[in-house]
Structure formats: structure tokens, C-alpha cells
């Protein structure tokens, strides 16, 4: 009974609706009744676990922070200790390590305040939980010592350092050597020399680990954290931030906004962001925004615009403004895999691209680098910017899919083939036949768009498959519904229902290294004129990983330029 009464009174205290008599009763129960005290302790225990579950670092962020600390401690130990012993006024204190700011804050508090510091934060939080702007509770709700709203507590009088240096080596602050434990303020410029490193820690536990050759200006600490990364690289493990006050890292090329996540920002000729956990929002100099989720990367280019990931393409062909009978592979990976036109009379080059009809292009050498890269990663993205000709849409429905780009051996063996049309819809859908350890040599069953997206206009289409086999199609940068086509001899029975994503079973493995990359038609001369895709090619690229929706949007935007 006493435990039930104690919990009732605690509920009143939590809601701020407890009067003096009830407060005294609760205090008496907690002091004199072990059963009541145990019940309230169990309640507090679950409260702690819930708050920890809601607010603590994610598993990945925890590991990233741990790795940064281990690296920093390895690189700084003896030198820092020697410097601290000579110059740090706090060196005699008992090993506060990275808690220096917090420890100093506690030491500065009055003993009476410390007496209630253990329990007050969690109870006063129940009255005014995480107000979001750093405000603190001033209405005591704990029946500990007599208090009034003006009673000093650890919460409302302690000058907690908002930003401190956890580790530092080879680092200066506004030109002065930086020591661990230093308290930082806005407008300071942190400079990490070659071979150095520094880890900053905000009061909420957010950390920023900066590597060598980094220049970081602290623009604002609270409310809202704002850092300007001029050069170098910083890995951030960001705790959940108050609503309206995210952490923002600005660079010469744009900004990165994090609510609660782990990511690395590197500034060189462009700004590169790699996200380990959570989601960050990038904004470039002209205001274009994109979100990057865990596992994703993005880049803000030197001209300000979010840069598409062209440099990660295994092969890249830009048909715009071309001439002659060859198309150069513009990718930066491996030996160039150039294409040559076959069965061509006069190539129809225009500023917009290459118009092809009853002919196609084939790589001059085996597409070994494509096969090896995709087999190694188990992932694939095929991107094409093109303008289907109405003739494609009206051509013989038995000749499908029309060949857009593929890695093929002959008419019936291939590693992949992006085409237009299948039995279910001979003209309007896009279709991917992919050879996996479970699919046939023809790449069946195929994955196709659920709707007919091929129209006689300029558009972009992309197929992605990640390491777990999840397959998606994107048209004009937007994800579209897909379906599996098991049996293309039966237009109705052999298809799955439309879905946002389907799984292509099996692994990408054992692709033939001697296959050629073909565009617009099969490589076999006898096949020319059959299954040829008709239209204008603008850009084609193949990647050995599954690009993110944001990256595909940048590719789509890029092809409009």
C-alpha cells in the first residue's frame, strides 16, 4: 500500500501538481518506508532506461565516437601529459579526462547543490522535460531539502561549459597552442596542423573529431550549434538536437544540417559528406537541398551545386555534342572502355546527343572492369538519359525489350540488360534483366517498371540493386513502382503485383569478364535491326553500387544542363 501511495505522490510531483502536505508525505515515505522507496526507485530506474533509449548515441555513433577517442588518445598521450603537467592549471586534479568541463562545473557548485544533484535533474525534467532551448527547471519537485524557486541547484546556477576540448595534439586556437580541457567560445578559430588532431565536445555529448590540416571556426554554440569548416575533415557524432536548433556545419560550398546523427564532412575543392547513421540535410550555395541517409555520401561541388557522383561511375558516356564514330569513356576508374558505332551510315550527332536507329554501339574491348567491379560489390546502378523515338514505341511488339544498354554475350546470354518494353507492355515499360546466381543466363526473371513511363520526350531512367538484392527503378529522379516478370510468355500470370521495391534473388557473381558493353542494339551483327532501340542518347553511366535517391536526383538534374 505504501508503495502505491508513494507512486501516486510521485505522479503528482512529476506533473507539478503536488502541494506542501503531499510533498512532506512523500518525503516521509521515501525516508522511512523501504517498500515505498523501492517502488519509486524502480520507477526512476525505468525512467532512466527510457531516457537513455530515446537520447543516447546510436550503436554506430557510439562506435565512431569510441574510435575517434581511441585514435586521439593514441596520438596525444605523452606529449599532452607533459604539456598539461607544466602548463595546465588544473593538472593536479584527479584524472578528469574528457569530462574536464563537466568536472569543473561540478567542482564550482556549492556542496548543498551537489546534495540534490543526484536526483533533481531527472525529476525536474519530468516537470519541464527537455524544453529544447537549454532552459532549466526552476521549480523544485523533489522532497529532499526545503527549497524555494530561488534555491540554487546544480541545474540553475552551475556555469556548465558548453564546448570543451576533449583531446588535442598539434592544434592551435586563434594561434595559441590548444590543451585538452580548454573551454571554447564563439568566434574562435581552431587550426589543426599536419599530423595533429582534436576532438571537441559539447555539453550535450555531441562530439566533433577533426583530423589533421583542418581549420574550423566556432560560429555559435548555443542555442543551436554552428561551425564553419574552412578546410580539412571532421567526424561528427551528434546527439538528438532540440527542435529548431540543429547542428549546422557550413563550408565554402554549402551547409550540412544534422538533427542527431553521425557523419564526416571533408572540405577540399568541394565538400564531401559521408553519413554513418541518421540523416543529414545538405544545402548548396544556390539553395538546392537534399537529404542523405545512413550509408550515403554526397558532394557539394566547387560551383556550389550539389555535385552528382559522376566520378564514381565505372563507365560514363556523354553523347552530347559528340562527333565521329567513337564515344569516349569519361569515367576515371580503370582503363577507358570506349564505344564504337557499328553499322552506321552517317552518325546523327546533335548538341543534344546521338540519334540511333537500326544500329548501335559496342565497346572496343571486353568490359572487364564493369564485371569485376559489380561482382566485387554485389551492387549495380544503370543510369540513362535518353529521348525515346515514337518509332520505338510503335515497333514490332515481338521484339522486346529494345536494347538500351547491356553487358552481353549474344542475343540470349548477358550479365545485365536495361531495355524498353517486355511482353506485358511491349513499348512503354523499362525492364532490367540481371544475371545473378539464382537468375538464368538471360537474366530472367526480369524487373520492370509497373507503369509505362517511356514517352517520346527527354527523360532519365535508372535501375538500382543493392547488396541485399533490393531493386528499384527511378524515372526522372523519382522512384516508381516495379514488379517482377517471371514468365514473359504469359502476359498476366507471370507478373508480381506492383510494389515500391522488389528483391532480385541471388548474388551478382561470376559475370563473364569477356562480355562487351553494348548500347542501342545487340552485339551480334545478325541481331542488328532486331530489338534495336530507337531514339536519342544523352548520357549513359554504370555504377558498381546502388546510388541513393538523392544521388539519382542530382544525376537527373545534371542531365538537364
Amino acid at each position, binding site marked *: 500500500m505504501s508503495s502505491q501511495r508513494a507512486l501516486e505522490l510521485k505522479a503528482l510531483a512529476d*506533473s507539478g501538481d503536488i502541494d506542501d502536505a503531499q510533498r512532506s508525505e512523500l518525503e516521509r515515505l521515501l525516508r522511512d518506508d523501504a517498500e515505498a522507496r523501492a517502488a*519509486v526507485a524502480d520507477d526512476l530506474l525505468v525512467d532512466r532506461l527510457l531516457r537513455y533509449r530515446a537520447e*543516447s548515441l546510436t550503436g554506430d555513433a557510439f562506435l565512431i565516437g569510441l574510435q575517434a*577517442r581511441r585514435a586521439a588518445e593514441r596520438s596525444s598521450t605523452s606529449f599532452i601529459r607533459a604539456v598539461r603537467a607544466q602548463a595546465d592549471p588544473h593538472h593536479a586534479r584527479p584524472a578528469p579526462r574528457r569530462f574536464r568541463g563537466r568536472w569543473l562545473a561540478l567542482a564550482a557548485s556549492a*556542496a548543498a547543490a*551537489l546534495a540534490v544533484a543526484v536526483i533533481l535533474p531527472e525529476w525536474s525534467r519530468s516537470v519541464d522535460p527537455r524544453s*529544447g532551448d537549454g532552459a532549466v527547471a526552476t521549480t523544485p519537485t523533489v522532497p529532499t531539502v526545503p527549497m524555494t524557486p530561488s534555491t540554487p541547484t546544480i541545474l540553475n546556477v552551475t556555469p556548465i561549459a558548453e564546448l570543451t576540448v576533449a583531446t588535442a595534439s598539434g592544434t592551435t586556437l586563434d594561434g595559441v597552442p590548444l590543451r585538452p580541457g580548454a573551454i571554447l567560445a564563439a568566434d574562435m578559430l581552431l587550426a589543426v596542423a599536419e599530423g595533429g588532431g582534436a576532438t571537441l565536445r559539447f555539453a550535450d555529448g555531441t562530439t566533433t573529431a577533426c583530423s589533421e590540416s583542418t581549420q574550423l571556426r566556432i560560429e555559435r554554440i548555443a542555442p543551436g550549434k554552428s561551425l564553419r569548416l574552412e578546410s580539412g575533415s571532421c567526424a561528427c557524432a551528434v546527439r538528438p538536437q532540440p527542435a529548431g536548433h540543429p547542428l549546422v556545419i557550413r563550408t565554402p560550398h554549402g551547409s550540412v544540417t544534422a538533427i542527431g546523427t553521425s557523419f564526416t564532412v571533408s572540405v577540399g575543392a568541394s565538400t564531401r559528406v559521408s553519413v554513418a547513421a541518421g540523416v543529414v540535410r545538405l544545402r548548396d550555395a544556390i539553395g538546392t537541398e537534399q537529404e542523405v541517409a545512413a550509408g550515403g555520401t554526397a558532394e557539394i561541388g566547387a560551383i556550389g551545386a550539389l555535385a552528382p557522383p559522376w566520378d564514381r561511375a565505372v563507365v560514363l558516356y556523354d553523347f552530347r555534342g559528340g562527333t565521329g564514330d567513337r564515344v569516349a569513356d569519361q569515367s576515371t576508374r580503370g582503363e577507358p572502355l570506349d564505344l564504337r558505332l557499328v553499322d552506321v551510315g552517317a552518325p546523327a550527332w546533335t548538341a543534344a546527343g546521338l540519334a540511333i536507329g537500326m544500329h548501335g554501339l559496342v565497346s572496343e574491348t571486353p568490359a572487364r572492369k564493369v564485371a569485376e567491379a559489380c561482382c566485387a560489390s554485389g551492387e549495380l546502378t544503370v543510369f540513362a538519359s535518353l529521348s525515346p523515338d515514337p518509332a520505338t514505341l510503335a515497333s514490332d511488339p515481338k521484339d522486346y525489350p529494345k536494347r538500351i544498354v547491356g553487358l552481353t554475350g549474344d542475343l540470349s546470354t548477358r550479365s545485365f540488360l536495361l531495355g524498353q518494353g517486355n511482353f506485358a507492355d511491349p513499348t512503354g515499360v523499362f525492364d532490367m534483366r540481371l544475371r545473378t546466381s539464382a537468375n538464368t543466363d538471360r537474366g530472367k526473371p526480369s524487373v520492370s517498371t509497373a507503369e509505362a513511363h517511356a514517352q517520346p520526350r527527354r527523360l532519365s531512367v535508372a535501375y538500382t540493386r543493392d547488396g541485399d538484392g533490393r531493386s528499384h527503378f527511378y524515372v526522372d529522379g523519382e522512384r516508381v513502382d516495379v514488379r517482377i516478370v517471371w514468365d514473359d510468355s504469359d502476359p498476366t500470370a507471370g507478373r508480381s503485383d506492383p510494389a515500391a521495391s522488389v528483391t532480385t534473388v541471388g548474388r551478382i557473381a561470376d559475370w563473364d569478364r569477356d562480355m562487351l558493353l553494348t548500347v542501342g542494339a545487340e552485339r551480334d551483327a545478325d541481331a542488328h535491326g532486331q530489338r534495336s532501340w530507337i531514339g536519342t542518347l544523352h548520357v549513359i553511366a554504370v555504377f558498381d553500387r546502388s546510388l541513393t535517391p538523392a544521388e539519382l536526383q542530382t544525376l537527373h538534374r545534371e542531365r538537364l544542363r
Partner: protein
Amino acid sequence: MEGERAVTDVDEFDLVARAKAGESAALDALIRLHQGPARAFLAARLHDVSMADDLAQDAFVIACARLDSFDPSLPFYPWVHGIAHNVLRHHLRTRRAVPTDPHDLAALLDQTVHERADRLGDHDHLDLLRHCLEGLAGTTAETVRAHYFEARSLSDIAEVQGRSAKAVGVMLVRARKFLHDCLLARIQGHGEATA
């Protein structure tokens, strides 16, 4: 953290051997494997979330630095748990270096929280809690989510739900009681399953 203990002892011994040989991926895997219960141990005993994370990282930094001294024939987690326990003890001793009132009610209650946490034993309470949260339903589940995971105050929740803050407080106390009982039940079940 969730579900990361589902590897066999053979896997762990292999990971320890590889980590001791300097393979960083094996060390990372060991940390992933054991961070859940270690962090839960500290989270239950500290009201400061970031401090719990800090101390958990401290424990693993020490474990990594002293890995050479670890006997690979022994289970890894008890060793890490011992380090975490020492880190916590050191932290509490340091914090209480400033004299406090021995009769302070807050200290008494905090001591009781520690004792009650000890009673729950050495498990990944955070993972167990995840399952228990799935047992909440309706308004109670919404209230817990709003208060803990959306940082809404009791008065805000009360306004949205059209009830008093006191009623919301009572609802949360009952929800925590349910979760505590669920944790105990799952821990007892876990003990039977592994006995």
C-alpha cells in the same frame, strides 16, 4: 545494440583471438557484441544520458588498451563488465569528493536505484525494454512515445489529450510499472532459458 549478442561462444573466442592479434574489424565486432549490456548497466545507474555514454566509451577504451592482458580462454563480457563497474565506481567517487549530507534523501534514493538495478542482473535491459515497449498500447503507448521519444512535457501531452497533467503523470507511472514488471518477467524467462 539490439540483437547483437546472438553469436556463439566459439565466434567470440575467435573474435578475441583476432582482436588480440591486432585485427581492428574483430575488435569492432567485439565492441558491437557487448556494448548493449555494458551501456544498459551504466544507463540504469546514471541519470545523465551523455555521462552514461561517456563512461561506456571509457570502459571500452580501457578494454581496448588492455586487451593484451585479457585471458582469451575466458568469456569477454564479464571482463568488460568489471571494467565498466570500476569506471562507474571511480566516477561516483570523484563526483562525491565534495562532502555531502550523509542523510540526504536524494543520495538514499539513488543508492536504492543502484540496489534495484543490481537486482535486475546483468542483461541488455535496453533490448529487453524494446520488446516490453511493444506491449504498451493505445493512449499509454502514445503518451510514453510523446514524453520520451518526442520530448513533450506532461502539460503539452495533457493539452493534446484533453486531460490533466496529473492524469498524464499517473499514466506514465503506470506505464513504467508495467515496463518494470515486463523487464523482470523477461529476465526471469531469460534465466530459465539459459539455465
